[in-house]
């Protein structure tokens, strides 16, 4: 378990302010945040490398706030590996290993055993990172701290490293806290997501929940939500005609009219009337040639201004009275609907797809 209670710390320019969160024993936590938000400082504070000014750092249920790093039973892997350049690969992996057997085992798993005799200077970036992961795991840590360990890897090595790490994680069930700026990776790996900004935890919880319901427009923007609108929220009494299609859980919330400069659409939420932000993920926006007779409460006619193919999905931007609405649609839909720049189209989304913050 990793638990931080109102932790304040400082490392050079970076500060942590009242950081509080918990990653349960054997869970995989991910820390997300922009550059300079204090992600590495957070890991180093947990590792004991950066001293805590105030607050508590709990590891495995024990208060280890003032315990030196070597007695915290954890491992850290930095983005830049930090292999000891005066040692060979084998000497690096065995540096703090629980045993030679443990070092040999992880070396084999991460396929660095073949590099054992080589000096660190002769390794590629990917090889260095695999050795760094093996070195941290050879110690059999109870907590593993990962600072963007896969970011410099080529896609094939990244997949391999993730798979091997995941396999070992399921096998040993140590607690992991990984820093990433890639929310796809966070959603893929994490049980708990912690969003950090300027040294403060701005949101935490289930990664999918953070992704779908960001606590602020800033977080929504950082997490890649294309449709973030500033406007005014106003709870309404009258329900739109197809309100009954909303899910049961949605009934617990009030229907809300959200007004931007040019649009008014329906949402569900427990909001105070006044200025707010509405977030709609591009995946929740559908496109059709004519208004659809369905549960989609918000439908707007507009003109396509941009189509950006991106893997299996295309990002289609529809200009609705000067407000761009982005929809993520499959390449097949693009073909079937004959979507081209300049074409008139109807963009629609459910009231339940609108997240107000």
């Amino acid at each position: 378990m990793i638990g931080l209670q109102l932790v304040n710390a400082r490392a050079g320019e970076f500060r942590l302010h009242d950081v509080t969160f918990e990653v349960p024993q054997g869970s995989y936590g991910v820390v997300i945040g922009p550059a300079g938000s204090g992600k590495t400082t957070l890991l180093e504070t947990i590792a004991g490398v950066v001293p805590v000014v105030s607050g508590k750092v709990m590891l495995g249920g024990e208060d280890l706030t003032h315990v030196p790093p070597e007695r915290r039973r954890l491992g850290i892997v930095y983005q830049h590996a930090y292999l000891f350049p005066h040692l060979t690969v084998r000497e690096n992996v065995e540096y703090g290993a629980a045993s030679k057997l443990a070092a040999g085992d992880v070396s084999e798993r991460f396929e660095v055993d073949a590099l054992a005799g080589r000096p660190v200077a002769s390794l590629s970036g990917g090889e260095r990172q695999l050795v760094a992961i093996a070195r941290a795991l050879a110690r059999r840590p109870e907590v593993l701290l990962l600072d963007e360990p896969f970011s410099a890897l080529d896609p094939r090595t990244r997949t391999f490293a993730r798979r091997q790490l995941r396999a070992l994680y399921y096998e040993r069930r140590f607690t992991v806290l990984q820093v990433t700026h890639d929310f796809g990776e966070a959603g893929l790996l994490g049980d708990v997501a912690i969003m950090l900004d300027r040294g403060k935890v701005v949101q935490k919880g289930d990664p999918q929940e953070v992704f779908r319901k960001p606590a602020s427009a800033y977080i929504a923007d950082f997490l890649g939500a294309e449709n973030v609108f500033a406007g005014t929220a106003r709870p309404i009494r009258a329900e739109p005609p197809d309100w009954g299609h909303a899910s049961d859980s949605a009934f617990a919330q009030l229907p809300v009219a959200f007004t931007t400069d040019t649009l008014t659409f329906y949402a569900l939420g427990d909001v105070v009337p006044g200025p707010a932000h509405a977030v709609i993920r591009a995946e929740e926006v559908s496109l059709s040639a004519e208004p659809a007779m369905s549960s989609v409460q918000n439908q707007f006619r507009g003109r396509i201004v941009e189509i950006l193919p991106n893997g299996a999905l295309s990002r289609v931007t529809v200009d609705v009275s000067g407000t761009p609405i982005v929809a993520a649609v499959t390449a097949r839909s693009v073909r079937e609907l004959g979507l081209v720049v300049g074409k008139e189209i109807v963009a629609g989304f459910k009231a339940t797809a609108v997240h107000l913050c």
Partner: protein
Amino acid sequence: MSFTVQPGAEPAPIRLEPSPEPWRANPAHRAVLAIVVGLLSSLFLLFILAPVVGLVASGGARGVTSLTADQELRASLALTAITATVATMLGMLGGTPIAYLLARRAFPGRALVAALMDLPLVIPHPVAGIALLLVLGRGSTVGGALYAAGLRVVGSPVGIVCAMLFVSAPLYVSAAREAFARVDARYESVARTLGDDAWRAFRRVTLPLSARGLTAAAVVMWARAVSEFGAIVILTYNPKVVSVLSYDRFTSYGLSETLPAAALLVLLALIPLAALRALRAGEARVR
């Protein structure tokens, strides 16, 4: 000045004059610049080199041959090398922790400590000798206590070591600090998470990674200690190190008699300098 727009008149085309070529772009100017820079550099190099080469050429051979016959010169050379080595070792012992702290830790008074370490570099060396005499002379508290304990500082090799240490240790601390600063502190952090305590991480990681830089710092300190004169001459005229011997012979017998000792001193200082260059060349290859 006013402009009148005539209805229907075509606006006069704007003529763009080519901007004047920067003087650097002109090949003739570049050649002149190269000649001036080359000349100045050559003159400067000659200014440094000519006296040294002249000295070694005039007295080097005589200095080496006189080593067998000139016992005083031989003893002086040995004394210089030994006292410089002892001073360097003491400098490393006391200076390494300070250099490490200055490179790695933020602590109250850090800037003051750094400034204090640079102080001997800006004090004229005879003045440094006088200051040392005040503290270590037999009449002072410290010097008197040392003398009572059987350790004579002034007029002994101990005084030479003290003078050498005072004037050359700041060079070691400064270079060692740079050497430590070049090693990323995260290597130590990783070592700590891998089970090393602070001392073990320093010994197993930081020290090997900064070894070349520390050796270079020690070499610089040794070379500076060997060539010291001003502070030593105040604290310990006798026994004579080579620099004092050269001065003594110059004032007593004239230039000709000084040349062998002076040339040998230059050669003695050249040995660590050559070693330092070799070390740095090796370092560049490793990078």
